[in-house]
């Protein structure tokens, strides 16, 4: 299979199974649209010449077909999907990533919060240090030969339990060498509790920081109010600016959510970049149902797609003028991204990645937290449901009917399992709206790569 599309004047053809990306001229693009399946014949079929004879000369059609055939022989067009044998070999792997929900409480009342304002629909509470300590021990114990271990302090708002964050880091650092491990800590915060001391600490200890803000003041404050109902923008912006200024080259993302209220989200991204001075940006579609006032609907797709195109063109313009910023969802390393095996099952939640609640309960990921049927153990008790782990280890793109023939399967790896379950009641049934947005983002990201590669 191939995927062909036209964007910003570029006629792009992707060969999903090899990862190759090509820029076609009009003739070759029209020809390839008429080729249904491989293998290709060495000579241009008559039906193609007949179909296109009113637009191009026979010689030109034959010549362009020859180029297409050469790529087919080379294995960079209509290449076969040879990865299913690897998928069949996939099984339980060491746990190497943990989302540690140190606070099931929050000092913001964001309307769209998938964590139900921080408590995930459960009892509010902060994680005691002994639970965090057991979580570190659990992670090391189940990490096998993996050296790099990721621990994300999450919530709720993790800075509401900063003392435990600090003690947990200290504890993990104190034992990592003896176990031949390397901890990479990250923290996701709403910024309200940042102060000079905490900023210094986070910049020193955190491998990555995720700073939540939705963009323009009116957009942010509409859905991210404080507990007393006032906006959070004016409180967090100077703190984020200070943190980023002092962070140097350290990794961070200013991360927001867009909803039906701001489908013109390019303006939010530009505000974060130009007015506030951030250059590592992420803005994601809200996770909710269509029933909510702010939830995205399928009928919004044309407008959202147009907005992603607007953003891509703006980013391209800035790349060419040396004034660029990074947008997480347009990041794509065509040369050296993750290996094909990683791409078969994506986030690997419930298998390599787990989330832990303040009382030590284990869930497949932060988005499954609070759903009893998905609870898979407890770090204090040292229990782990190996059946659930095995289930997730075998949840790959070939198990998902909508994915196995999708051109984007090796870029998105089957989508978000929790999102799938939430929307259609099955981990194996991808949410259509999420899929369409993902595909559009990929098309935009690849267009930027193509445009940059073809500049004189």
């Amino acid at each position: 299979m191939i995927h062909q599309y036209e964007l910003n004047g570029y006629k792009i053809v992707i060969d999903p199974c090899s990862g190759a990306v090509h820029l076609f001229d009009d003739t070759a693009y029209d020809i390839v649209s008429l080729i249904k399946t491989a293998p290709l014949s060495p000579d241009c079929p008559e039906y193609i010449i007949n179909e296109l004879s009113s637009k191009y000369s026979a010689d030109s059609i034959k010549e362009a077909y020859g180029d297409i055939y050469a790529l087919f022989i080379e294995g960079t067009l209509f290449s076969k999907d040879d990865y299913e044998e690897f998928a069949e070999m996939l099984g339980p792997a060491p746990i190497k990533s943990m989302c540690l929900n140190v606070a099931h409480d929050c000092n913001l009342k964001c309307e769209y919060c998938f964590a139900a304002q921080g408590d995930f629909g459960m009892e509010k509470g902060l994680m005691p240090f002994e639970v965090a300590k057991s979580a570190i021990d659990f992670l090391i114990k189940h990490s096998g030969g993996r050296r790099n271990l990721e621990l994300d302090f999450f919530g709720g708002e993790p800075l509401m339990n900063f003392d435990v964050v600090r003690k947990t880091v200290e504890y993990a650092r104190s034992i990592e060498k003896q176990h031949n491990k390397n901890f990479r800590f990250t923290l996701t915060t709403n910024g309200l509790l940042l102060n000079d001391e905490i900023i210094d600490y986070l910049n020193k200890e955190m491998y990555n920081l995720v700073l939540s803000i939705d963009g323009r003041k009116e957009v942010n404050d509409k859905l991210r109010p404080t507990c007393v109902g006032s906006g959070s923008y004016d409180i967090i912006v100077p703190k984020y600016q200070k943190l980023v200024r002092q962070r140097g080259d350290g990794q961070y993302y200013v991360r927001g959510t867009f909803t039906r209220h701001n489908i013109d989200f390019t303006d939010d991204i530009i505000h974060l970049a130009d007015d506030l001075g951030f250059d590592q940006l992420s803005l994601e579609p809200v996770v909710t149902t269509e029933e909510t006032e702010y939830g995205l609907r399928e009928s919004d797709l044309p407008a959202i797609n147009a907005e992603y195109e607007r953003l891509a063109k703006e980013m391209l313009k800035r790349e060419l003028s040396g004034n660029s910023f990074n947008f997480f969802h347009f990041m794509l390393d065509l040369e050296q991204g993750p290996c094909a095996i990683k791409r078969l099952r994506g986030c690997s939640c419930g298998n390599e990645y787990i989330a832990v609640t303040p009382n030590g309960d284990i869930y497949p990921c932060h988005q499954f937290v609070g759903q009893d049927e998905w609870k898979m153990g407890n770090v204090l008790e040292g229990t782990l449901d190996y059946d659930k782990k095995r289930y997730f280890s075998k949840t790959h793109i070939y198990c998902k009917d909508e994915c196995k023939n999708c051109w984007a399967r090796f870029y998105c790896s089957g989508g978000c399992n929790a999102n799938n379950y939430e929307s259609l009641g099955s981990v194996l049934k991808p949410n259509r709206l999420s899929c369409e947005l993902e595909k559009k983002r990929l098309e935009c990201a690849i267009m930027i790569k193509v445009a940059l590669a073809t500049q004189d």
Partner: protein
Amino acid sequence: MKHIKTINKANLKKSTEKGGCGECQASCQSACKTSCTVANQDCERK
């Protein structure tokens, strides 16, 4: 080639030869947390 410019040569099949070490970042640990994209992750072996 006159009609086609290849922007990126195939590399996915080659990646299986040394792939699957499992050391790379879980995608949800970077910046997303809500929407999965895997192809933007770095390979630890590059």
